[in-house]
């Protein structure tokens, strides 16, 4: 019976191919979109690892509600705690913390001569150099010192790309730049960090200033967040607990968040998962279209082979035998379509990987193949039932 099915499908190669095309495209789209979603997650994980290990973020507002992503992030950050030097001094006294960098965050116009750029301003202390691994390469100057950050010295360290944009084909070291009418001297260029593209502003477009110098650009003398480096991975939960206890003495627990990288990654993962699911769902619609195509072809096949059905019944085939024969055919068509779609998606994932991360997972393969054979059975059922109910006498007479 199985061999007969293969023969039938092979004899109608063109029609079988066109029928399976809907399934091929559907399976291809589903697997590939899921692969891109997964690749993106892996990519973001890697990017986070590059930020530096064992990082803890202390931010204003309640970013996670019971460990889940709070969609009103922006609001809660604005209405949350405004950290000041007192918080910083008290946090610094925690022995468990290896290093802490307060961060003044702003966006401003940075110019050098006629060239200018709208950049992220990071005001901090020398501690950020080690936490974020920002030590300039040899020959690229130096980072500002602890003393410079305390004394609000007007010095700046430029991100790798920003340095090239403002000072093409020359060394920026010792040159002057203007940020919101304040003049700063460039003392170093940070190493290349990457990021950017569609994923937000590049880390290489930033300007690093001593925090007191950065305060001359902002209205309030406050910190936007703190970056903390824990001693090691195992101490992260303990460190977070101590930070929370300390800040709770001054702030309501709704007013600040203490997050580590895994938590931030979880938030991003959840958003990406939802996105991937939505995209895969849309792609799955093409599987239904493919199923309708199979149904159409199966109805045609049944009509064409009416006399065959009559003969088979005359020699003893039961209604179930006939039904199963046509079901096998439609399921097989659909499954082959699924396999071809899988092959295509593996090839395209390889190609896409040159530009964009894509990773095919085992469960997406199982799901796509399972769904495609199921589609074949579901959409093959109605034509197969029609065939099984044919009267043998009328079927034999059919011209």
């Amino acid at each position, binding site marked *: 019976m199985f061999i007969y099915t293969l023969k039938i499908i092979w004899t109608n190669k063109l029609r079988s191919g066109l029928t399976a095309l809907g399934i091929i495209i559907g399976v291809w789209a589903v697997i590939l979109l899921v692969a891109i979603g997964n690749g993106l997650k892996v990519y973001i994980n890697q990017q986070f690892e590059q930020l530096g290990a064992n990082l803890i973020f202390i931010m204003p507002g309640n970013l996670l509600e019971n460990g889940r992503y709070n969609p009103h992030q922006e609001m809660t950050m604005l209405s949350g705690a405004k950290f000041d030097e007192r918080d910083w001094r008290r946090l610094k006294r925690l022995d468990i913390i290896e290093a802490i960098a307060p961060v003044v965050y702003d966006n401003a116009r940075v110019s050098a001569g006629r060239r200018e750029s709208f950049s992220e301003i990071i005001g901090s202390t020398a501690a950020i150099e080690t936490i974020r691994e920002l030590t300039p390469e040899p020959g690229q100057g130096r980072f500002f010192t602890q003393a410079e950050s305390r004394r609000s010295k007007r010095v700046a360290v430029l991100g790798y790309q920003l340095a090239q944009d403002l000072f093409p084909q020359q060394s920026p070291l010792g040159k002057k730049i203007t940020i919101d009418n304040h003049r700063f001297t460039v003392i170093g260029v940070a190493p290349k960090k990457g990021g950017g593209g569609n994923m937000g502003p590049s880390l290489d477009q930033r300007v690093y200033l001593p925090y007191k110098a950065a305060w001359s650009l902002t209205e309030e003398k406050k910190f936007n967040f703190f970056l903390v480096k824990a001693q090691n991975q195992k101490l992260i939960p303990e460190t977070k607990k101590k930070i929370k206890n300390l800040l709770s003495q001054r702030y309501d627990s709704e007013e600040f968040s203490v997050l580590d990288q895994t938590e931030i990654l979880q938030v991003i993962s959840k958003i990406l998962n939802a996105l991937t699911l939505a995209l895969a769902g849309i792609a799955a619609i093409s599987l239904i279209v493919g199923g309708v195509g199979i149904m159409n072809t199966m109805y045609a096949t049944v009509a064409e082979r009416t006399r065959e059905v009559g003969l088979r019944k*005359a020699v*003893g085939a039961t209604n179930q*035998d006939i039904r199963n024969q046509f079901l096998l055919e439609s399921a097989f068509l659909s499954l082959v379509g699924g396999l071809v779609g899988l092959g295509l998606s593996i090839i395209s994932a390889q190609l896409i990987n040159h530009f964009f991360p894509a990773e095919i997972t085992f469960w997406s393969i199982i799901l796509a193949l399972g769904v495609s054979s199921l589609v074949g059975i579901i959409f093959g059922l109605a034509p197969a039932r029609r065939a099984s109910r044919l009267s*043998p006498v009328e079927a034999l007479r059919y011209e």
Partner: protein
Amino acid sequence: MISLKSVSKVYLLGQTQVKALDRVSLEIKRGEFVAIIGASGSGKSTLLHLLGGLDRPSNGQVIWDGQDLGQMSDQELARFRNQEIGFVFQQFHLLPRITVLENVLLPATYAPQKNLTQAQTRAKTLLSQLGLSHRLNHTPNQLSGGEQQRVAIARALINQPRAILADEPTGNLDSKTGRQIMTILKKLNQTQGITLIVVTHDPSIAKEAKRVIEIKDGKIK
């Protein structure tokens, strides 16, 4: 023994009812060779279909050795056709995409107790008895009409049926080949005692039968 008791068959052609058979009663003994003759549209094919369990009567009973075919479920009827009846049709009805051997084996694949190796041996024996041993792996369209009808006869015999029901078995053949086919069928009836019921409008074939039943306007004449 096969008996028909006041069997009628009514078809619906659009809005009008067509009476193909009208209260037909008859008995056929096991091992008999019966010819059913009549003009086209007389109801003789309908009679054959009812005898072979391909169709159900609108009224009356078709009884094989005490078993009423009308009381059987679709599945039981399929099994009955598979085990007890061998059909031979005017248009041969061979499946075009499979080989001669596979065509002969087709009824064996639907048998309740499948033994395909045994069936295969039997199919080869039957085909060689019918002079087709060199044609096993050909497809039907590579065969002449007479050869195709011999394949159909081998297919009818594969499950060792009690009766062969043939609907105009020579209708698509030239007279010489037709005679050969009738000789084969007659021999099966004589040597193996297989009940042979042949529908025909050819008087020369009817002459060979032990008994002739003539149908006219759905009634036995």
